[in-house]
């Protein structure tokens, strides 16, 4: 007969109690998703996230999975779920399968590890995404940022749509474009990227509350400030992009 040894001094399992013995590798402890800068999250969302992780696991081998975006904000006012998958190979049909299982639209972005690190170095939006997210495994610290002004200018042009279509776009779109503008500003100014800092920046620089912006309660005064701010930042970025290209 084989024997199992356990410490004499232990919590629980008094002598004579019945126990189950099973191999450790058959049931590894399920790791709970890791939350970054999220104070609270509705339990139903945690359930959805676990479902998403399981769909992805069934389709591909991943190094990490990150959930980010408006899905992590309080309440259920989100359009889709943003998912970043770090994997060596891309797998097709994941978005469709997640939608079938959860009935929610998802937006999946694939990266291999190196490309993801590169994106985190140069792109303020990806840095911002990681400032509030849920990941399957613990994230490594952010890499040191690298200012590529030409790339930042390319990102900035998106925010020009607010000026071109001010009267015709809704509050959500205006908020998104303003957030992009402010994220690039904070990145260039070497400030920490977080939703809090961005929203404070919007209030300070453009004189508008976030709820007013999201609800499209914007007037010409806001548009004037936005234009001035945009043009100032664009001028600074283009000037530096020119210098950077000359130096290269």
């Amino acid at each position, binding site marked *: 007969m084989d024997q199992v040894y356990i410490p004499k001094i232990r919590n629980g399992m008094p002598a004579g109690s019945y126990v189950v013995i099973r191999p450790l590798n058959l049931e590894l402890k399920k790791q709970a998703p890791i939350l970054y800068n999220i104070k609270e999250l509705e339990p139903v969302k945690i359930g959805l996230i676990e479902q998403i992780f399981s769909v992805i696991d069934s389709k591909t081998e991943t190094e990490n999975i990150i959930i980010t975006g408006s899905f992590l904000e309080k309440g259920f006012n989100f359009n889709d779920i943003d998912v970043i998958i770090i994997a060596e190979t891309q797998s097709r049909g994941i978005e469709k399968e997640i939608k079938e299982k959860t009935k929610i639209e998802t937006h999946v972005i694939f990266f291999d590890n190196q490309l993801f690190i590169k994106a985190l170095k140069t792109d303020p939006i990806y840095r911002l995404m990681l400032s509030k997210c849920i990941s399957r495994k613990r994230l490594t610290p952010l890499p040191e940022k690298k200012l590529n002004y030409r790339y930042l200018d390319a990102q900035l042009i998106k925010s020009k749509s607010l000026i*071109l*279509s001010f009267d015709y776009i809704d509050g959500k779109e205006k908020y998104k474009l303003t957030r992009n503008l402010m994220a690039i500003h904070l990145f260039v100014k070497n400030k920490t990227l977080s939703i809090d800092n961005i929203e404070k920046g919007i209030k300070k620089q453009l004189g508008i509350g976030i709820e007013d912006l999201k609800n499209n309660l914007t007037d010409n005064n806001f548009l004037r400030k936005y234009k001035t701010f945009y043009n100032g930042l664009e001028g600074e970025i283009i000037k530096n992009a020119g210098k950077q290209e000359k130096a290269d």
Partner: protein
Amino acid sequence: MPENRKKLISLLIGHISIAVIHEILIGSTENKEIADHYKKEMENAINLSKKYRVKTNPKNSSFRNKDSKYIKSQIINRVKLECNVKSKGYRKLFFSSISP
């Protein structure tokens, strides 16, 4: 011009201008990664332009000459303005290649 049509034409002009600006920017860089980014943005802008065009009357035929001229002149003005700003930092902005 009815209000809704005016709005659609304005959005159409905005997105075509963005597409043209990106087309010019593609030619101004040798960095493939950035050129790909411009290309992606250009394609997005073209798709949005198409979306607004199919909603704008006349839906199944060309714009009237007057409207076409107006749209073209607006696009050229916007693109010229943007190129002027960009040319402060970038060389090789070939605006002439798209302006007839």
